[in-house]
């Protein structure tokens, strides 16, 4: 262990300090020194994010994968009268998400290197976002969790709304409306939980058996919030708009990390705290997941905007996550976590790939492109690799999550696995057709004649992601071994809650929802 060093707090709040530093710098510098300010802001942001990433790796090395409980726990009384404390800690489920976040942030900063509009603010927003997202994964107090969870909306909202595309206001608004409405219900549920248990300590809450019919309501309230975040069908329509309008780095964070908050929430709250309700609603989640996988894959096939296509594809891939989580099998849950981490890498890479051509030609229309391979062969190869990873080709990390979640689902209900497997066909259709239209063929658009291949910065970003996508495609155990102990505990806890407590309660729950 790291002695008394509060490493989680350091990882969480260093970016915020960086943001403050940038904003202070901006306040201190005169306006005619804009270029200097921008350069310094980028430098600070890159340095801070890299340092945080290094710290997160130190934490990962120190992390004891054999232990199921929370580690590096820090606890300070905050509002002791209310049982609210500042409590941080990670377990096998959250630790890798912290690392993923810390890993993607430097890539975001690097990919925004050429930005010219309000650079200092932009960098500060990203640093603030990092603090809030890492905070979500580390928080062990429900109140703290809520603050981070909701707070992460604000910088993302600004990133889309200020640095986004033409229709950014609509997209930012839609993003905000959706996620916020879900959260309001979650907030209400948290208040109810507090009144029941008298504390907001997540560790205590995890051990508290909630009454069966109460679970139903609490589950639904949390579901409202997490389903929007995932996003699950039919509350997914904010995502394509948000992605299309967001700047490249915004999309990377959105797809790479923010979408994982929903899945993480299911694993941290819904399953362990409301096991009976989870079991009761699992079939509904399966149906929604399959619809998400099949329907959004079909929709993706018809997109003319490459970014929208990848956005819809993200919805489909998140369908595998919800599917896996609610199988409540070790294979399904491990697969879901793997799928989230893998999607964090692959979708981030795909959005960066789109960013590469968007930076050059300022359009996302698929029909604008065609024949890029003749001018950008390296780009074509890299984009091709990630397209295949997105399709779930074995040997890429995309495959592992899909096969694990589907195999887990098959153990529960073969129909579910069959439905999900349909998505595997469609994903090949939309991805390969889009890839062909952008990359293959002859160049018919004279504007593409000037295309230049990847520069060093883009090459580093995509190269690192490519190595990860392939490495974990061939060796998945480094990840599953890290998460194993905590997942096993989660499933045991879930299963031990399942014995029929009272038949009355069991019948009451469906009756209540039906009445509603």
């Amino acid at each position: 262990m790291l002695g008394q060093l509060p490493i989680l707090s350091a990882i969480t709040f260093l970016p915020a300090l960086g943001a403050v530093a940038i904003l202070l710098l901006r306040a201190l510098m005169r306006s005619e020194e804009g270029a200097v300010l921008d350069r310094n802001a980028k430098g600070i942001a890159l340095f801070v994010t890299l340092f945080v990433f290094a710290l997160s790796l130190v934490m990962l090395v120190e992390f004891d994968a054999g232990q199921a409980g929370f580690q590096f726990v820090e606890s300070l009384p905050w509002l002791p009268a209310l049982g609210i404390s500042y409590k941080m800690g990670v377990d096998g489920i959250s630790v890798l998400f912290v690392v993923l976040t810390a890993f993607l942030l430097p890539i975001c900063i690097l990919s925004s290197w050429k930005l010219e509009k309000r650079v200092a603010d932009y960098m500060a927003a990203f640093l603030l976002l990092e603090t809030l997202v890492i905070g979500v994964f580390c928080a062990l107090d429900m109140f703290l969790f809520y603050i981070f969870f909701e707070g992460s909306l604000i910088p993302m909202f600004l990133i889309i709304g200020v640095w986004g595309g033409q229709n950014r206001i609509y997209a930012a608004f839609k993003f905000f409306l959706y996620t916020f409405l879900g959260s309001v219900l979650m907030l209400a549920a948290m208040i109810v939980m507090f009144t029941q248990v008298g504390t907001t300590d997540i560790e205590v809450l995890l051990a508290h058996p909630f009454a069966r019919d109460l679970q139903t309501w609490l589950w639904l309230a949390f579901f409202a919030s997490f389903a929007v975040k995932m996003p699950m069908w039919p509350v997914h329509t904010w995502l394509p708009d948000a992605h299309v309008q967001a700047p490249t780095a915004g999309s990377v964070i959105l797809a790479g990390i923010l979408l994982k908050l929903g899945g993480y929430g299911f694993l941290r709250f819904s399953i362990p705290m409301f096991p009976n309700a989870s079991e009761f609603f699992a079939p509904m989640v399966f149906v929604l997941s399959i619809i998400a996988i099949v329907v959004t894959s079909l929709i993706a096939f018809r997109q003319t905007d490459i970014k929208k296509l990848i956005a819809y594809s993200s919805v489909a891939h998140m369908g595998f996550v919800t599917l896996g989580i609610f199988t409540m099998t070790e294979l399904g849950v491990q697969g879901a976590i793997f799928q989230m981490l893998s999607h964090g890498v692959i979708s981030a890479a795909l959005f960066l790939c789109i960013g590469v051509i968007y930076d050059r030609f300022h359009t996302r229309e698929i029909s604008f492109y065609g024949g890029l391979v003749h001018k950008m062969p390296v780009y074509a190869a890299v984009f091709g690799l990630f397209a295949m990873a997105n399709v779930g080709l074995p040997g890429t990390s995309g495959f592992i999550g899909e096969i694990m979640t589907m195999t887990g689902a098959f153990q529960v209900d073969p129909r579910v696995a069959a439905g999900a497997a349909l998505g595997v066909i469609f994903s090949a259709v939309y991805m390969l057709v889009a890839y062909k239209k952008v990359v293959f063929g002859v160049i018919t658009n004279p504007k593409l004649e000037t295309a230049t291949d990847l520069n060093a910065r883009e090459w580093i970003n995509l190269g690192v992601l490519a190595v990860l996508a392939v490495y974990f495609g061939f060796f998945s155990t480094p990840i599953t071994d890290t998460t194993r102990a905590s997942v096993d505990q989660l499933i045991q806890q879930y299963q031990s809650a399942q014995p029929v407590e009272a038949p009355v309660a069991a019948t009451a729950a469906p009756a209540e929802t039906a009445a509603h």
Partner: protein
Amino acid sequence: MAYIVVFAPLLAAAIAGLLQKQIGDRLAQIITTGATIAAALCSVAIFFDVTVGGNARTIELAQWMAVGNFEINWAIRLDTLSAVMLVVITSVSSLVHVYSWGYMSHDPHRARFFAYLSLFTFAMLSLVTADNFIQMFFGWEGVGLASYLLIGFWYQKDSATSAAIKAFVTNRVGDFGLALGIMAIYLVFGSLQFDEVFAQVPAMAEETIGFFGVNFQALELIAFLLFIGAMGKSAQFFLHVWLPDAMEGPTPVSALIHAATMVTAGVFLVCRAHGIFELAPNTSAFITFIGATTALFAATVGLAQNDIKRVIAYSTCSQLGYMFFAAGLGLYSAAMFHLFTHAFFKALLFLGAGSVIHGLHEEQDMRNMGGIYKLLPITWIMMIIGTLALTGVGIPLLGIGFAGFYSKDMIIEEAFMMGQDGVAFGMFAFWIGVIAAGLTSFYSWRLIFMTFHGKHRGEPEVLKHAHESGPVMIIPLVFLAVGALFAGAAFKSDFVGKGALTFWEESLPPGPYAVGNYGHLVEDYGQSHADEHGVELSEAESASLEAAMSEDEAAAAQDHAVEAAHGDDHGEGADGEHHGHHPPTWVLFSPFAVTLFGFVLAWYFYMANPELPRRIAANNGPLHRFLSNKWYVDEIYNATFVRATRVLGDVFWKFGDQKVIDGLGPNGIAATALSSARRIAKLQSGYLYHYAFVMLIGVLGLALWLIAGAGA
């Protein structure tokens, strides 16, 4: 040595692919070709080590996935079945690598081409050396990727990239079944390791799986789902549509991937998992039916194609049908034998066709060929050898002939015997096999006559520049021709004859011809296995012959060294029973007769009366149209699946997402919110901050409420 076989091609592919700028085309060619030849030499050594030395083994390399019981390793499994495949893959691949030096010599992207070829070789090798279903799936999709890349190698051509996508997607439809089959195996057996699964198969015969409200026999369902995968990869009817289009790729690719190796993966899968298929009689009947249908369907379509490569492609499809109906009838060793011989003569035909195309400056339409046998004499001879091997020319009774004679006639004869014994679709398969053999002869000779004989029908200018290919292309042809000539005769005993009793060891049942008993093969083999696993079976249930055989075996195992005893005892037993179970002479002669008939007919149409087929084509009667349009399968698929995908996609998007969800949800609320925001704030963009404000109030409210609650 096994490491060299599998990883040398991968390493070569990585070097040639990633460093192509640095090392240049020439070095990339040398590295990839050298690696593949090294792999081929090692494969031959492994083949003898495994089959003669009896050193079947599995090398575990690393852990791939491990979650609970879901443990998947990277491994190299070497047994007779995989050793046979190793030899086929690496030898054909080496020859194709060498051939491509000549064929691709003018292509600016040679390094990429060779990298893909080696990548394919690696993927195929990892498929056949897998010791579990997931690694096999890795190889399975890996060869699909390589196939996609190579079909679309000339990416500037729209037809090529479209064909590549079609191949990948159609294969994915098959993989959908295969993946579900693998999941079902995990559900039933709790493992995906071959040894663990196959050892449990007899115990699972009664298991059922509920699927969409129906209870299926678990083994039947698994076998069926696995076969869906095999149908996709091996281009069987319904999922065959990608194979003819795959001819858009360079011709060496067609020879390697779409004739000799990748498309046979489905046959390999069925043979590898034969333990499951043996106990799934309904699925086996389905396989026989699909295989036979494909054999006939593809042969009929082959009659009316004019593209030289497409004729051979349909021929491949048809021959794969033979392999499948053999496998469906339980004749796994015969299926593998045909796979083995087919690899040589079909690769020979494709590379020969490539030589013609190369010599005629990319002309592929046989209507523009003719009269060139003097200009390309070696190619001509090689193509004739390939055709003789494909059509299975040989002398019945004496048993001397070209490669296809041994393997194809074996399948046809055994199909007859199985049919006699009442195995489902046995007679159907036999008759289709005979008819398709006649059709095969017709379209094959049609190809030879149209390509090489008669008067030249193309541009005279082309004829002036027509040339025989250089030695780098001819030498691989010669090697393959040797295989087409002798592979059948040399390996008949080992694959399906008496040698098969020891040759396959545990990896495949030796087949009825080997044990001299055509009937009840399945139960017989199952019993000898059951004995080994110590499961008691009632002797009374078995036929006397079978009982005698298993006693023989048991006694032999005690007294003698197992291998020697196997051969001797069974040899005697086989001789003793052979006469009673031998197919009648007319059956032996029927493939020969139809082959001759096909040849004569082809000669009559394309040599004696060359105007006749042209008139038939010009009349364009319904039958001709039906055949030349490939039974309209593509059209039907376009009208249904492809269209449905588009329409559904549009409906879900424009109606579902935009109208219903957004209309009722955010946009509807937004409209309301907007108007109220206007009323309140009279600021056009105020509503954004309005919501931010609401959230802030929410958080504050929570805090206040909590503090108030604490104070109370």
